[in-house]
């Protein structure tokens, strides 16, 4: 058997360390109800990092997260019982919204691969397009969901935990199986590590790249559905601020932006670190105007501790 790589567990160590520090300042932190709240707040980011991790493992980046989430939230809100359009698909809205995410992902991937444009620019541009469509479709007004049943998707509880957490857990399971047990997952590592060699070995590089963006689109679409259910509406700004949180979480979890190194499980830990950090900021009563500074400082500390930099010959 392979020996356990302790270094790989460092992000978990950082997470617990952070929890201990916050708990010292604020004993309430360690309550069960707060744990549930943290998991609940992590649900959407976790779903988002599932897609983002695959993209980053491939050495690419997806900046269209906010655009896709917003557009899919709008699609979701428009297809269930709402105050603007006369649709009432109930839960059947979910496949449509997720599919919409997948289609935008396909647009990302196809543009990236066929026009040979760096993913950074493609996804930035497509992200703008998505936000633009979300704004234009509604003229700036939100679509509000009046379907109580649909909102149970995140508001309801199963076995004592909010459904959003279960959804996120399911997303992690699917992502993990894809990563470990499918060709797509293995090809992502191969391409992220050495694309030229992967191509020579017969890895269908173009198809894999497109599929990964589609997959990321699906996850962003699901996150859009969850955001719409959680806030009871869909509008263009619903995802603002999600992009950098997502990427930070992926990197804090120990996945290298250069590709090839990392895992979706690492990213889950990364999300927890980032969310606990925000949560802890309020719990510890850090003055608002220094919060961003403290957060920046702590992220540097967390990454310093968590990242296995011996694997990286160069740091970019």
């Amino acid at each position, binding site marked *: 058997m392979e020996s356990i790589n302790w270094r790989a567990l460092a992000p978990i160590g950082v997470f617990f360390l952070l929890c201990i520090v916050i708990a010292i300042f604020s004993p309430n932190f360690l309550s069960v109800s707060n744990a549930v709240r943290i998991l609940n707040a992590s649900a959407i980011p976790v779903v988002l990092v599932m897609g983002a991790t695959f993209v980053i493992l*491939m*050495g*690419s980046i997806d*900046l269209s997260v906010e655009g896709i989430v917003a557009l899919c939230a709008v699609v979701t809100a428009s297809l269930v019982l709402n105050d603007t359009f006369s649709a009432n698909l109930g839960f059947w809205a979910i496949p449509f919204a997720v599919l919409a995410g997948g289609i935008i992902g396909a647009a990302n991937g196809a*543009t*990236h691969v066929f*026009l*040979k*444009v*760096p*993913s*950074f*620019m*493609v996804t*930035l*541009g*497509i*992200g*703008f*397009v*998505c*936000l*633009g*469509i979300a*704004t*234009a479709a509604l*003229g700036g007004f939100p679509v509000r969901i009046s379907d109580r049943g649909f909102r149970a998707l995140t508001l309801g509880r199963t076995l004592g935990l909010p459904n959003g957490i279960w959804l996120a857990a399911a997303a992690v399971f699917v992502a993990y199986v894809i990563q470990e047990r499918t060709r797509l997952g293995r090809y992502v590592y191969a391409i992220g590590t050495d*694309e*030229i060699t992967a191509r020579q070995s017969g890895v269908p590089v173009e198809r894999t790249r497109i599929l990964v963006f589609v997959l990321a689109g699906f996850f962003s679409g699901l996150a859009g559905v969850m955001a719409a259910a959680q806030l009871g509406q869909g509008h263009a700004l619903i995802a603002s601020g999600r992009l*950098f949180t997502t*990427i*930070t979480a992926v*990197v*804090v979890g120990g996945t*290298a*932006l*250069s*590709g090839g190194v990392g895992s979706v499980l690492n990213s889950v830990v990364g999300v927890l670190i980032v969310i606990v950090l925000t949560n802890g900021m309020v719990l510890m009563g850090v003055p608002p*105007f*220094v*919060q*961003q*500074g*403290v*957060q*920046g*400082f702590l*992220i*540097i500390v967390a*990454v*310093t501790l968590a*990242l296995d*930099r011996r694997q*990286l*010959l*160069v*740091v*970019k």
Partner: protein
Amino acid sequence: MTEKQKELLRNLVPIFTLLALVLGIAAFEPGFLKPANLVTVTADTMTLFLMASGATFVIMLGSIDLSIQAIASMTSCILAALLPMFGGTALLIALAGGATAGVLSGLVVNYFRIPSFVATLAIGGIMTSVAFWASNERSIYISDEDKSTWLNWATGTSVGIDHEVVVGLVVLATLSAILSLTRFGRLVRAVGSQERAVVASGINVNRIKFFAFVISGLMAGLAGIVMAARLGSGSPTLASEFLLPAIACIIVGGTAITGGVGSIWKTFVGALIIAVVRIGMTFVGITVLAQQIVFGLVLVIAVAMTIDRTKVSVVK
């Protein structure tokens, strides 16, 4: 056609793209071509260019600087807060503030070996806190008197040319000289294309990276000062929404996001392309609901045209 001519032509593609866009807009609205308007458009572009000019060095290293927006906002606050007390010295203090932020990014990247993406994101957070602190959490006005005494170099007009343009051209010339005529510039390019070989040649790569981040911080600081001068105030959110456009204009100009290939004049042209598209949309009268969509699409199309794929084997 010889290789040399092809190379030259490839280099000129960003300029052709810019010309095509300008002519395209002029076809709808001939007034766009009035010299006064062209000068205004150029002047309006300069703050974006200044932000992007320094960051070009960092991107050529294959790294990225996400702190420039926060740095620019911070220096605007420092300038506005100190101008009444220290007069011209405030300019130097503000610039030093920008450079210090660059120093911090450089140190964090070099000594903690954290990817620049996260390091600069975190440093940006810290700079935002500094901006809040320096400005006492509000916008600070710059009096007309201070403005005309100390900031005329940035906002005045001489022989019909806005000073912003002059500042931009001076920066363009200086940074171009640094990039193409000095050893440092060459090493920036070298680190971006094959860092390990540069290390093995006994070059202190950390020093190169350090100075690249300092230049980036310094130029972001200068951009903040010019912005403050133009808007007559400093504010912790003054440069909001500038980050992604700044990076976009570096890449639209044809600099490779993977490093090693690029130049300052390309960033200059890239900034003009971004500005012409944005302002052009208003000029042509594209409805605001469609502007974001058009902007996103044009961004992708522009990059598809301008990037030089011959020097990059793998597009990520």
